[in-house]
């Protein structure tokens, strides 16, 4: 079972890279777009009177924005591509569940998005002399892993809607910027109106991101971090649970509507 799962991951990832990821669109998605946001963020920070731009929120935030955009668009285009190419029907009618295929794809997209974050860290270290001295690396890693798990759980959850119908798939695309705004990718979430903060409490990446930002700014407040990590993990598990419930419904629904091909 484990061997079979590993083989499936290997094959799916290979297809993913060959079909979707190595193209110019991905370069724009994972590098150019975050670079633009990073630049705008730095200019805004300077305009606000800061002599040095706030690295965590501008540079690292734009890297995370790159990961998020990469996840939304890549996952969306995977399913759109399958609809267009007629391969979605073949996957659905194979003994492997579409849910498993989507989970692996989303994981690949999330991990690929790490290049945005790595590039952002490199920019921070090389151009702005950002230093990791005094920062708890284990805490960074835990926050980062929970961020990835959170992105993964939201990605598979949203993938259901993209599979469900072409129209609902388009609505998923609209979520890219609103989620980035209410989760405080590029600024402290505390500056948002309370009602916006309230909405973001149901999104796991808001919590792991808050922890990551705090750790990168040198915080060692264990109770603060544990609370954020715990909520991020709990919400991720919740999203996975909802995904499992949705998968069966979506599978039956697309077999009724025949929404597996583009017209």
């Amino acid at each position: 079972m484990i061997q079979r799962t590993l083989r499936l991951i290997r094959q799916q990832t290979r297809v993913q890279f060959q079909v979707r990821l190595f193209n110019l669109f991905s370069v724009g998605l994972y590098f150019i777009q975050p670079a633009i946001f990073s630049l705008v963020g730095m200019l805004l920070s300077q305009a606000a009177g800061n002599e040095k731009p706030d690295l965590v929120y501008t540079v690292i935030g734009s890297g995370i924005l790159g990961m998020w955009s990469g996840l939304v668009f890549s996952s969306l285009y995977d399913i759109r591509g399958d609809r267009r190419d007629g391969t979605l029907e073949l996957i659905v009618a194979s003994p492997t569940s579409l849910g498993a295929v989507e989970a692996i794809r989303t994981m690949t997209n999330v991990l690929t998005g790490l290049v945005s974050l790595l590039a952002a860290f490199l920019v921070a270290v090389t151009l702005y002399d950002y230093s990791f001295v005094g920062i708890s690396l284990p805490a960074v890693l835990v926050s980062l892993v929970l961020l990835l798990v959170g992105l993964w759980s939201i990605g598979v959850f949203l993938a259901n809607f993209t599979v469900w119908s072409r129209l609902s798939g388009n609505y998923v695309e609209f979520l890219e910027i609103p989620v980035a705004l209410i989760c405080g990718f590029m600024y402290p979430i505390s500056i948002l109106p309370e009602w916006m903060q309230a909405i973001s409490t149901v999104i796991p990446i808001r919590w792991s991101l808050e922890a990551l930002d705090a750790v990168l700014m040198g915080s060692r407040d264990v109770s603060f971090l544990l609370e954020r990590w715990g909520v991020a993990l709990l919400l991720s598990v919740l999203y996975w649970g909802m995904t499992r419930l949705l998968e069966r419904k979506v599978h039956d629904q697309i077999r009724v509507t025949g929404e597996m091909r583009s017209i």
Partner: protein
Amino acid sequence: MNNDAIDVKNLHKEFTTRVGFWSGKTKKTTAIEDISFNVQRGELFGLLGPNGAGKTTTVKILSTILLPTSGSASILGYDVIHATQAVRKRIGFTFGGARGLYTRLSAVDNLAYFAELYGIQPEISHQRIDELLELVGLTDRREDRVETYSSGMQQRLHLARALLHDPELIYLDEPTVGIDPVGARELRKTIKGLVAHGKTILLTTHYMAEAEELCDRIAIIKQGSIVALDTPASLKKQIPGDSLVEIEVRPSDLVLFQEKLQGIKKHAFDVADNDGNKKISVRTAHPEEVMKAMAPFITSQLILNLEVRNQTLEDVYVSIIQGDKT
């Protein structure tokens, strides 16, 4: 053991589409209407019908891609609605056209991916992929991206994909579409070979000669309903009149010929446009009577072309789909 590979009972499928954005009204379209048929193990069964008749919808329900609105269908004893996993492991299918492949991948990579979706062990799948590429004549191009293939090559790769897990039952939806005559002949030979190896095949095609050559039995489907089901030979007998006489005349002479043919015993009579002329088709059990009536015109050169032939499956198909015009 039940000898049915496919058992379809009163299968019905409706699609509901939304009309307008605000109204909330829906429109129902019936794709197939209470169809029933069975296919025996080892049989090559043809499903024929015009575009939109419901052939592909039927195949998709039998492939577990679609759910029927009502009725039931079982594949090798497994219900297509509830036992989807059992059905999926045992069937292979191709849908007509170029879609259904990752065109940026090579043939080998496509097959390796689908082999994994079917849970085939790598040591088996490697050998199987080699054999199948050999079978469909793509060994030389195995590492090339599929986007560089001709449509015929893509069709052959579809077939290889459908056979990867050695399924007992194979659906072939217009497998020779876009393939040149030589390639189509090769593919038909391959299909015959599969049946000789005990596979059951459900074939949909628009090519009547292909259906006549390959199929043990044929169902003709029209507007979602099966309107004829029998062996090709029996189907041809169902339409009265063994022979078809086709007479090509100028439009100005049509009335004259129609009058001449009025008194002759015939089962069907049809007039169609043919490159600016008119082609009269007379289906009859007594072609000699038609020939006798036409004899004076042959010498006067009023007849541009005349052909007498036995009825083909295509004649039967056209007669059933269009209805007799006697």
